[in-house]
């Protein structure tokens, strides 16, 4: 069942096939779980931590899943490989950079993954293309139940699933919807969205989650509260408010087209031209151009590139992926050259 983790396999969430995927890049749900009989990872001895890692790995393996899982011990994985997993949104930065026996189990096309020995014993994740909170919930619920059959989760009727940080106890659930909002950024309407969502208990996070920056006009909207609200309740709030943000972005895109179509086309094509011709390009610059191209493709202003390729480029042009593709370590100027080269060749291959 467990083979090598295939880093060349593109995640399903980048396929651009899910509902509303012109604006919603992905829907992610994660559940924090700890098992009975082991302390939390803040308080565990190295030896027990290793024991726990093997124990959890075997339980995940025994969970009778309908799909294959690749399991990887991150202590035996190179920093570059770990960074690639971060760039693919399969593990957190903390998980990549921490020490000791810890791992990740990944299902087909990165739709399901489990971090073992992160802040909690298990961080179960489902990551899907587009806006599909219900499908993601059904999938993670099924997975959670199968794991539950293998182990006793730390749970109290009063505080719910017990987690290392009290901000996660209760359901242990975080729903994050990654939205691409270039028109709202361009027209400076984005602050209004932040203001509105904060009032209803949702938070805005960056491209790589908590504490990270927004890049390429991507923002993650996620719930904050995990105690005192049921999973369905939280999902309902997300299902109610995210479509409003989608509509808001669409309206501004239309407005931009109606008021200045040539201006917008110029912006999109210039971005495309830069990606097609540049010889040195930074990661931030690439994200900005890709963002404009992504909107252009979704608005039918440009048809030179499929959306899945644009999405994939957001990830493959990140530092670790570039180094993995080139097969060598690269410093920043080398990466900028390498990145420009890669994007240029990728775009040329589309013709």
């Amino acid at each position, binding site marked *: 069942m467990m083979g090598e983790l295939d880093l060349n396999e593109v995640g399903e969430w980048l396929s651009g096939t899910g509902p509303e995927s012109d604006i919603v890049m992905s829907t992610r749900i994660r559940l924090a779980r*700890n098992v*009975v009989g*082991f*302390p*939390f990872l*803040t*308080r565990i001895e190295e030896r027990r931590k290793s024991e726990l890692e093997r124990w959890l790995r075997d339980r995940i393996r025994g969970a009778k899943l309908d799909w294959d899982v690749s399991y990887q011990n991150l202590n035996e994985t190179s920093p570059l490989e770990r960074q690639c997993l971060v760039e693919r949104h399969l593990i957190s930065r903390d998980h990549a950079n921490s020490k000791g026996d810890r791992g990740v189990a990944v299902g087909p096309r990165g739709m399901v993954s489990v971090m073992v020995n992160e*802040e909690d014993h298990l961080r179960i994740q489902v990551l899907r293309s587009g806006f599909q909170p219900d499908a993601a919930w059904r999938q993670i619920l099924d997975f959670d*139940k199968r794991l*539950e*059959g293998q182990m*006793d*989760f*730390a*749970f*109290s*009727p*009063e*505080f*719910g*699933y*017990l987690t*290392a*940080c*009290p*901000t996660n*106890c*209760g*359901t242990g*659930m975080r729903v994050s919807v990654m939205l691409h909002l270039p028109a709202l950024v361009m027209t400076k309407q984005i602050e209004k969205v932040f203001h509105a969502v904060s009032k209803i208990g949702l938070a805005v996070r960056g491209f790589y989650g908590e504490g990270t920056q927004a890049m390429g006009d991507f923002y993650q909207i996620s719930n904050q*509260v*995990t*105690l*005192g*609200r*049921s*999973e369905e*309740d939280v999902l309902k709030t997300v299902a109610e408010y995210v479509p409003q943000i989608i509509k808001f972005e669409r309206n501004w895109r239309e407005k931009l087209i109606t008021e200045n179509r040539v201006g917008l086309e110029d912006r999109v094509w210039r971005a495309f031209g830069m990606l097609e011709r540049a010889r040195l390009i930074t990661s931030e610059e690439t994200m900005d151009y890709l963002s404009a191209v992504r909107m252009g493709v979704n608005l039918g202003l440009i048809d030179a590139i499929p959306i899945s390729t644009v999405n994939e480029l957001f990830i493959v042009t990140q530092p670790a992926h570039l180094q993995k593709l080139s097969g060598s370590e690269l410093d920043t100027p080398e990466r900028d050259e390498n990145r420009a080269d890669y994007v240029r060749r990728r775009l040329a291959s589309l013709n």
Partner: protein
Amino acid sequence: MICESCHQNLATVHLTEIVQKYKKETHLCEECARTRGVPYKNPLAKDPLSAKKEEPVVAPPPAGELAEPCPSCGTSFSDFRASGRLGCPHDYEQFKRGLVPLLEKIHGAVQHTGRIPARVGARIERQRLIAALQRDLSQAVEREEYERAAEVRDKIRALEQQQVEEPST
């Protein structure tokens, strides 16, 4: 001023009463006031109620059970306050008094309303069933239906056995 009751100690409790429209003043020492059951407050002594009010709700000082580290993992409440992370599931019980106000602040709630793991759910179900059967049992005994009482008792025993066999969470 000398106490009007014992005529020995210094009067420190000054009582003003209205008796049939007339103001009546009594001056007593602390001891006599206490024996007479006068409800008075020593302003210097800490009133447990007002002291509670002054305590900051968010960060109660580690006192009583909060001062004790968790017997299971050794984490103390100050460890938690420094790192923001608990040491083991038992800490939620151990530091409950300190955590509840914090959870209230973070989540605006202190009671889980979401999913319950199937195994725990089964335990809770069973506990409820046992409680209901125990009511049946006392009813049966009251009515002197001993055959029925024995039946119910066996059911309870079987359920209790199941509770013991499955490790509690």
